[in-house]
């Protein structure tokens, strides 16, 4: 027989304003097993926890029910408090009377009634709880970082500097990511490559870091501390060990029609290529769709000119299996496809470009060697119009519902840089709102307006019409002036929304990490655990979690690294004791449970049992508690009812059902 104590939290007025907490406590006193019930302002506070300890001592309690906020919030807090007070932490149940009661109901009577029922169910469950002891599992002291942009690079460097091994998996031929494509960075206008390339080189040189470029995650299994990951190294057709990075192969390659991914398709590249001069590693790859040798068998020029004998047309994709204690997702973003925005004539005119394309045009290593030119005729533009919020903040299925966050600042940057370098060029920016929260951000935008004379127009553009003379007419509205404006421009730059890299969907499934409706990875808690995924051992870094700029990305990357270091520093982890177990007298060894177990945690043993005096050897299911994650699939599948789950046993759930329906 349990001796249960019930504690009803006011949560300030969050609960107490809608739920009559005294009545809930009083009602619990007549429940089976309850010997003590009380209410308090803040149960999670130190004095609240002290109250629990006192009651345990005074009333010799064996189980606790806390009626408070969601267990996702403070279950761990109260379990610790119980342990301190000398009760097994798994003898605690939470009745969620805040998120699932006081916050959604207005009527005090109704909410109080519901709180009583929820508390009743928790009491019924605790009556059947039994003490559980958590097991231990070892931690593999290596981290995997998926994605080699600035987020992945920073995370990897921070983890490696703490002395742990890190692997970076990057799907393109070089690390560097989107930041390597940028020309200058706001709000300081320092050159992106100047601050990024040293970090890339550091990564390559770090003894604790292994970089797998041109590689993808193929499969993930295991759990926190013990992940096993298959990495596919795509055939590079170049032996990285032999290649000296001289670049002669690229120079001689006769196939030069492919569009350069790095330059956003604005220039061409050879079939054998490194994406950009500072690529890490400085080892080219052969694009099999463009290579004449791989397509037709003829050519082989690169092989002939390679003094290091590094070319290998027979290379095949390779699978490498590695073990990790923690995984960081840093898959970054892409600019949205603009097919839904043909009113801006992006597909109809070469002089309508995205902001990322403008970065390449402004960059000395870009398609125009840094000269501001129109992509259609190479002429210098005299009038440039920027359009903000293209595909952001939409509620129409065409675009994204969120604000892409970085566009206001990079547009101000572009406008300022152009006015600085080409003072005779007129620059107009159509905006809906200018959003510049951030250190020195609004000052930066104001400088664009006040010092550089950028013409900011409040209003959106309805349509861009290409004209017979090659110019573009921008049809917009000036809401402050109250008139339609038509600007004749030579170049239109669209601040297109950003979205998570498409690979993240599949990756989320592999990692069983949840993603939101916009394909951003979900954090464990939006405020308190912003760099952790709800899946233990999986961490988030950079834009894969939500739009952010470089400084924010770098801080989040560092935070993710700190979390990983905290995990890898442990020698072993406490495992979840809520695992399955089978009753050897009921088990008939049918294998149904092993067939549904996603973790291969169930095996069979021939074991001698004593069934009511009859001794015989039977085939019996055994659960490996280190592997079992406690989903409970086996418990429902088991035809004889032998499988049950600690913490969520059949009897416990039925007791909750009964208490609710009573």
């Amino acid at each position, binding site marked *: 027989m349990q001796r249960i104590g019930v504690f009803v939290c006011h949560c300030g007025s969050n609960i107490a304003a809608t739920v009559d907490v005294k009545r809930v406590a009083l009602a619990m006193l007549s429940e089976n097993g309850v010997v003590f019930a009380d209410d308090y302002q803040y149960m999670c506070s130190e004095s609240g926890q002290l109250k629990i300890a006192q009651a345990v001592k005074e009333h010799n309690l064996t189980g606790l029910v806390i009626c408070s906020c969601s267990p996702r919030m403070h279950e761990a807090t109260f379990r610790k408090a119980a342990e301190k007070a000398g009760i097994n932490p798994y003898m605690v149940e939470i009745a969620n009377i805040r998120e699932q009661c006081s916050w959604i109901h207005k009527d005090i009577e109704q909410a109080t009634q519901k709180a009583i029922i929820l508390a009743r169910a928790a009491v019924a469950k605790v009556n059947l709880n039994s003490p559980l002891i958590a097991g231990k599992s070892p931690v593999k002291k290596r981290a995997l970082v998926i994605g080699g942009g600035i987020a992945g690079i920073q995370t990897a460097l921070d983890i490696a500097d703490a002395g742990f091994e890190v692997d970076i998996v990057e799907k393109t031929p070089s690390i560097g990511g989107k930041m390597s494509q940028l020309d200058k960075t706001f709000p300081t206008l320092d050159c992106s490559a100047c601050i990024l390339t040293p970090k890339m080189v550091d990564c390559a040189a770090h003894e604790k870091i292994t970089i797998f470029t041109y590689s993808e995650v193929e499969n993930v299994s295991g759990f926190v501390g013990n992940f096993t990951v298959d990495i596919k190294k795509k055939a590079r057709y170049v032996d990285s060990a032999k290649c000296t990075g001289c670049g002669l192969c690229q120079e001689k390659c006769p196939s030069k029609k492919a569009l350069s991914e790095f330059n956003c398709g604005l220039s061409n590249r050879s079939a054998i290529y490194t994406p950009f001069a500072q690529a890490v590693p400085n080892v080219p790859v052969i694009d099999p769709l463009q290579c004449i040798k791989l397509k037709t068998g003829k050519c082989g020029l690169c092989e002939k000119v390679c003094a290091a004998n590094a070319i290998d047309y027979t290379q095949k994709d390779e699978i490498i299996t590695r073990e990790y204690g923690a995984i960081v997702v840093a898959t970054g973003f892409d600019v949205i496809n603009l097919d839904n925005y043909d009113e801006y004539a992006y597909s109809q005119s070469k002089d309508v470009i995205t902001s990322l394309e403008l970065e390449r045009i402004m960059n000395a290593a870009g398609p125009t060697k840094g000269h501001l030119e129109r992509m259609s005729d190479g002429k210098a533009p005299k009038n440039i119009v920027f359009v903000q919020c293209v595909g952001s903040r939409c509620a129409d299925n065409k675009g994204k519902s969120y604000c892409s966050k970085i566009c206001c600042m990079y547009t101000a940057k572009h406008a300022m840089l152009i006015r600085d370098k080409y003072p005779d060029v007129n620059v107009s920016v159509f905006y809906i709102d200018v959003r510049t929260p951030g250190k020195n951000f609004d000052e930066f935008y104001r400088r664009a307006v006040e010092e550089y004379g950028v013409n900011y127009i409040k209003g959106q553009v309805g349509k861009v019409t290409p004209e017979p003379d090659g110019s573009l007419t921008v049809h917009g509205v000036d809401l402050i002036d109250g008139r339609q404006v038509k600007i004749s421009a030579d170049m239109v730059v669209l601040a297109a929304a950003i979205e998570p890299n498409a690979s993240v969907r599949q990756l989320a499934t592999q990692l069983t990490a949840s993603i939101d409706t916009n394909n951003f990875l979900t954090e464990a808690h939006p405020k308190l655990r912003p760099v952790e995924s709800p899946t233990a051992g999986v961490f988030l870094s950079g834009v894969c979690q939500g739009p952010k700029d470089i400084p924010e990305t770098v801080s989040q990357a560092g935070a993710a690294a700190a979390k990983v270091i905290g995990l890898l520093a442990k020698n072993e982890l406490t495992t979840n004791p809520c695992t399955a177990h089978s009753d050897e007298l009921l088990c008939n060894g049918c294998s149904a449970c092993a067939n549904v177990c996603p973790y291969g945690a169930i095996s069979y043993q021939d074991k001698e049992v004593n069934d009511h005096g009859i001794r015989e050897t039977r085939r019996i299911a055994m659960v490996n508690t280190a592997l079992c994650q406690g989903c409970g699939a086996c*418990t429902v599948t088991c035809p004889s009812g032998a499988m049950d789950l600690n913490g969520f046993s059949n009897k416990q759930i039925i007791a909750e059902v009964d208490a609710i329906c009573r």
Partner: protein
Amino acid sequence: MPMNSTESFAPKIVAFCCNWCSYAGADLAGSSRLAYPADVKIIKVPCSCRVNPMFILRAFEKGADGVIICGCHPGDCHYSTGNYYARRRMTLLFSMLEYIGIEKDRVRVEWVSAAEAVKFSETMNSFVLQIKNLGENVRLGDLRCKS
């Protein structure tokens, strides 16, 4: 249709929510103050695949008027495949309910992610309305269970 009694009739509804998606979705509905009727009481389970059809029948025996099972979206299960098992089991339960002459609309399966607070609240509102339209569960209630 017992439309006129829907005002006074407060159905008993049990909602099984998986710990990773739907329970979190319910929490988010709470912190976003998206109301749904107090008739819904949530039982947390690790995964929708932990819900034994027997629990549902038990709830009906004990006088529940509707049972709803919420899990992660297909493909997003924290345990990879649990929600697929749940879906298959519930399909069988539906045909069994139909076979024994019970309105299968008293049971619903919905996928609600941790981010879908609006969907959670809308689902609960519509389910309660559906149960109110069906009226009290009289056919499944076990008289021995009535006090």
